[in-house]
């Protein structure tokens, strides 16, 4: 690419507003990238001219984070999510289809017209919609290879690309019924904002007085977009005080609730018509006519037998929510995420006031210690103890950091919490900071969560305006300021020392612990680093007391845990369960098990640092110790259900590919060790495994686990070690050239059986002409040309195409 014409004054202006210290470097680079879609060389040079930041530092940082590009990019970014849930649901095939659609050659990421730049992203946190593609800020869920053309067309028709989801605020009028629409990223991706608009239009037209309230994630992601309608109770209770049906709202006396799932804008109008029938006979007659027409239109789209009004008192909804306990998700689905007044009405802010004015730091720390709360970020370190160490560490300046760099593919709890209950997290952070003796707090939130970033920023402003944050809070004399720092795309920054390095404007390289951040953290000062979920638990804990919290859970794992339940499960979503619940209860009880005809094989718990627990062990309780004994970890709470079509070697390879790519590159064990492990796993999946590969892999995995510098490397072998422990047979099969799950492309072949009706659909679907169309005759697949993209099989009306495995002669053709 040639020299670009960049206006140096723009760079100057960016630096002017971001600051000139090293800690401002990442925001500066983010702003430049935002402006030019990449980092032009002149801009980088200009930064080193007008700031004291060393040129070496600028280059090092610019090349460390995935978010930054040094090459010009196309006008629109196409992000294909390769999170765990997307992977098991076929992200690789979607990626191939996208590349085919744009005509990208090997190693190319931008199409010839400079229109689209395709990126693989680790996880966009919309796992229940897997596989997911994001084009220019618009999220598309349940993408199939066949559907790729469609989403590009839709995107093109949309003309101007909506670059972000607009902030939603409560709208409509009246004290009457309240209509709640989820506006989390997943809901929005499935069109909840359009549904909201349609509802508003319909209300306006029908003249009904009702409020449409945007609410945070309800957790029932598999049914999104959800619309809940609540009428005020028989008593004086206003509608807004009625809990969501999903939190047992039907139990509140006299309240009437209706719940709709998978609502489209079109159906939204009908909901209004149904629920609020207008008076007047004539009017009604017209409406009946209109409804008849409408129903036809709807029924075309809604598969037969699928009701769109949900019964929440029994059946699936009840199963889904029955076992859940809402601590962190207490007000999800009830409150407008940014309505501070509503938050205050449900008792929000009281805990912070109580800590500040009544309890004091020491008593609060004692309470948190007594509650048995352990960090929800993965390692499970006792939270109260962390605060106490930070508090006791010498130093005038201390910091509190909220770790919102939720990078685990397959996990999105923190995104949901930040998007849905930002005030709660901030309240928790304020308490943590106060207890630790820190008057400055930073929330480090990953850049892939733009909505969370925006909501938390806005929430800080509103809390400051209300006097909950800032100087001399509640007249206590205590001051606390919080700010948001956006990550720039590096999984390793979820490791606390790497996160702190990133906050200081450096490459996110972890450092050896000890010293722990609590002793020596941000800028060398004692720092308490707590996870989003941990902080969101604090207000509840302070409000209800240590006993209420420790009353839930097991001996060493107290309270509740939020999980992102995804993968091959019928009811995926965000759930909060008491510790000690068994995996089976989660998967089969809450999640409804796997799809009919499939077999529940294992759960992957804890993401790239966790492991696979086989179905046979699914009576294992969710508990820090029990999970780690089984070789997995609690992790941040990703729970991906796998069925018999999932190959465990492939799963291990998937995670190693991830950790290998995300390794910071500092220590030999992780930088080279993960790559060497990946190489062996790739060999196995490619059918080139050697006899001693399994032993070599196992021994290397142990070495990497015990020798790596930070938690990323130490836990990276877990997916390998657990699959080796529970599914060694499958590894051996791969050495013999078989993939029992029929997943690994090099070890399978597609064959057409006699059931073929000669409809030629497979031949038309095949992107590489591996099938010759022969109408009314049995078709044949050329194994040399076949890329195992599965398009023929998934489109075959006669189910005549089956997958065979075993060592085969022909190589897999490269697409």
């Amino acid at each position, binding site marked *: 690419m040639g020299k670009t014409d960049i206006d140096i004054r723009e760079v100057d202006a960016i630096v002017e507003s971001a600051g000139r210290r090293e800690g401002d470097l990442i925001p500066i680079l983010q702003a430049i990238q935002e402006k030019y879609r990449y980092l032009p*060389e002149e801009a980088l040079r200009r930064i080193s001219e007008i700031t004291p930041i060393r040129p070496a530092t600028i*280059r090092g940082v610019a090349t460390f984070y995935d978010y930054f590009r040094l090459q010009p990019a196309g006008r629109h970014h196409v992000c294909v999510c390769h999170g765990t849930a997307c992977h098991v649901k076929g992200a690789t095939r979607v990626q191939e289809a996208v590349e085919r659609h744009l005509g990208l050659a090997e190693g190319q990421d931008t199409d010839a017209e400079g229109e689209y730049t395709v990126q693989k992203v680790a996880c966009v946190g919309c796992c229940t919609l897997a596989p997911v593609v994001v084009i220019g800020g618009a999220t598309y869920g349940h993408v199939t290879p066949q559907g790729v053309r469609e989403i590009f067309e839709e995107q093109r028709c949309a003309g101007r690309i909506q670059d972000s989801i607009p902030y939603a605020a409560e709208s409509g009028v009246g004290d009457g019924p309240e209509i709640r629409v989820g506006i989390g990223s997943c809901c929005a991706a499935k069109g909840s904002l359009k549904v909201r608009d349609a509802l508003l239009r319909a209300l306006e037209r029908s003249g009904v007085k009702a409020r449409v309230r945007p609410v945070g994630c309800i957790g029932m992601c598999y049914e999104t977009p959800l619309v809940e309608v609540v009428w005020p109770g028989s008593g004086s209770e206003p509608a807004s005080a009625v809990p969501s049906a999903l939190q047992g709202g039907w139990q509140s006396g006299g309240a009437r609730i209706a719940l709709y799932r998978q609502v489209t804008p079109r159906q939204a109008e009908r909901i209004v018509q149904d629920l609020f029938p207008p008076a007047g006979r004539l009017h009604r007659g017209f409406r009946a006519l209109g409804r008849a027409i409408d129903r036809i239109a709807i029924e075309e789209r809604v598969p037969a037998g699928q009701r769109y009004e949900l019964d929440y008192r029994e059946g699936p909804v009840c199963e889904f929510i029955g076992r859940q306990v809402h601590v962190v998700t207490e007000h999800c689905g009830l409150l407008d995420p940014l309505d501070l007044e509503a938050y205050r009405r449900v008792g929000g802010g009281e805990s912070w006031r109580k800590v500040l004015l009544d309890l004091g730091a020491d008593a609060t720390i004692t309470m948190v210690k007594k509650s048995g709360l352990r960090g929800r970020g993965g390692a499970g370190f006792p939270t109260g103890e962390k605060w106490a160490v930070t508090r006791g560490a010498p130093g005038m300046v201390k910091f509190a950091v909220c770790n919102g760099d939720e990078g685990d593919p397959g996990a999105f709890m923190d995104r949901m919490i930040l998007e849905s209950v930002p005030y709660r997290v901030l309240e928790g952070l304020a308490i943590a900071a106060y207890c630790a003796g820190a008057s400055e707090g930073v929330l480090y939130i990953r850049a892939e969560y733009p909505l969370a970033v925006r909501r938390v920023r806005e929430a800080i402003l509103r809390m400051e305006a209300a006097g909950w944050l800032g100087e001399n809070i509640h007249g206590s004399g205590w001051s606390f300021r919080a700010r948001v720092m956006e990550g720039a795309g590096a999984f390793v920054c979820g490791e606390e020392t790497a996160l702190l390095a990133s906050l200081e404007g450096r490459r996110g390289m972890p450092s*050896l612990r000890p010293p722990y951040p609590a002793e020596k953290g941000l800028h060398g000062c004692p720092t308490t680093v707590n996870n989003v979920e941990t902080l969101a638990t604090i207000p509840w804990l302070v409000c209800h007391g240590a006993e209420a919290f420790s009353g839930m859970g097991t001996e060493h794992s107290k309270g509740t845990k939020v999980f992102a339940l995804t993968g091959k499960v019928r009811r995926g979503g965000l759930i909060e369960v008491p510790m000690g619940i068994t995996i089976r209860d989660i998967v089969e009880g809450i999640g409804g098990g796997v799809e009919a005809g499939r077999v529940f094989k294992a759960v992957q718990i804890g993401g790239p640092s966790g492991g696979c627990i086989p179905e046979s062990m699914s009576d294992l309780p969710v508990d820090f110790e029990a999970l780690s004994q089984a070789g997995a970890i609690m992790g941040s709470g990703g729970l991906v259900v796998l069925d018999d079509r999932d190959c465990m070697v492939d799963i291990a390879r998937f995670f190693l590919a991830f950790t290998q790519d995300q390794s910071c590159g*500092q220590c*030999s064990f992780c930088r080279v060790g993960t790559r060497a492990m990946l190489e062996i796993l790739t060999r196995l999946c490619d059918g080139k495994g050697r006899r001693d590969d399994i032993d070599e892999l196992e021994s290397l995995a142990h070495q990497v686990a015990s020798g790596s510098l930070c938690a990323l490397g130490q836990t990276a072998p877990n997916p390998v070690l657990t699959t080796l422990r529970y599914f060694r047979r499958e590894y051996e099969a791969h050495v013999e050239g078989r993939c029992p799950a029929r997943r690994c492309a090099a070890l399978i072949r597609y064959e057409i059986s006699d059931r073929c009706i000669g409809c030629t659909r497979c031949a038309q679907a095949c992107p590489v002409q591996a099938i010759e169309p022969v109408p009314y005759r049995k078709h044949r697949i050329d194994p040399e040309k076949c890329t195992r993209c599965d398009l023929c099989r998934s489109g075959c009306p006669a189910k005549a195409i089956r997958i065979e495995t075993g060592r085969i002669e022909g190589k897999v053709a490269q697409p």
Partner: protein
Amino acid sequence: MSGSGLRVQIDGRNVQVPAGSTLLDAAKRADVSIPTLCHRDGCRPGTSCMVCVVQVQGLKRLVPACAYPVRDGMVVETGTERVLQARRTAMELLLAEHVGDCEGPCRRGCPARMNIPLMLRQIAAGRIDRALVTVRREISMPAVLGWVCPAPCEKHCRRTGVDAPVAICLAKRFAGEKGGRESGDWGMPPPRPGGRRVAVVGGGPAGLSCSLYLRLLGHTVELFEAGEQLGGGLCHSVGEGRLPKSVLVADIEAIRCTGVVMRTGVCVGVDKTLAELRERFAAVVLATGVHAEGPLPGPELARTPRGLEVEKGGFRTTMDGVFAAGSAVLPTRMAVRACADGKAAAFQCDGFLRQEAGAVPVPRFDSVIRRMEEQELREYAREADGHGRIQRAVSEAEGLSPDEAMREAGRCMHCDCRKAGDCRLRDLADQLGARGRRFKPAVRAAYSIERDHPDLLFESGKCIRCGLCIRISELRKEPAGLTFVGRGARTQVSPPTGVSWSGAILHAAAEIVEACPTGALSWKNDRVS
């Protein structure tokens, strides 16, 4: 020291160290040696190579000693099997991404493992006497081999991929014939003191070679030749006109000058028995050539269909103190192979006589690039002489003129590592017995060499990402400095955007070259002495 220190036990030794010390500091105090690569006193820890891992009682994982802070009462072990295995694995991982040659491929292809690139550099610099010393270190008869050697080294020469191999053999002949001419110095180092008496049987290339190196190793050597003439199989070459007699005589004279006593016309097995020799000498080396050609020196020795039986990979025969080398064991037509064999037998015999560990040189760890791409080769050749190979056959009477020799030697691309003799990575690989190919990726990283700095070279393939150069450039306040670019396995060391190496390193070159634990950063012009 005052009592305020921290107590720590390392490998059973108790020491006290001041607060703030690392385990490595404590180990030094306890006189326990812990290997390091990325550590340097005065620099902040790199925690990158992880070869310094140790086991701390109560911790499940291993920790890097270079950065782990000592806490009072710690108990540390540094020599357990687990620790050693982890260190070896760490080394093997570092070596997996190490793209570089320790030795030149030519040297690897030479049966006598002569340091050919060094010889060529010495010739190119006009230091012919030094070149002869280099040859003589590994080859007992430089001029002779300059005439008759089939030059397997040239088949490995990387220059072949650019145009044609360097005329190594001619260059060696030049060194052998012209070296020492003016100074009268044969290029022989002074013999070591404290030797024993050794008999060498057979005056061919293997026997002569063995005698020379035994002599240089300090032993008193008597060489017995059954015929009247010394030279063995080489005499055929003289007869065929491939080797002037004077050349053979001169090389033998140089060996005689070191003090080897040469007795011709004494046939062991006829005039003297092997048992008699064994009584008079502390050791006997049999280099009697192909057996069909003469009487058996020792009928009591075990044999194979091809010659005398020796231990696997060595030279010991079935009789104590009796060694065999050259065609007596395995017939060879290549004089250089016989020479190499004789030399190796000399070292093993020396080890037997001195009964010391380490007397026999073991092959060093050798990192190998193998095949290189055309683009990489061109990069390699950039600073070598651009002329084509000199057109002259080895057997032509006219050898190279000094100018020709210098120019031809200048064609060498310096494939051998500039730090081959001073590489901490290589030393440690030897020490830990690391297998360099264990984790080698299927596709290796591209080789590149940065030449833009006036004094130093940067070969990224040899870099182990220890970051010492980066830390030093920070410490020494280099204005532009160096940085890691990229992440994970793609991490590289580089100057900032738009800055070259010459702009990045203004005054810390000496320190970073010295600190670099591998050949990644080296002086452009290495000394040829």
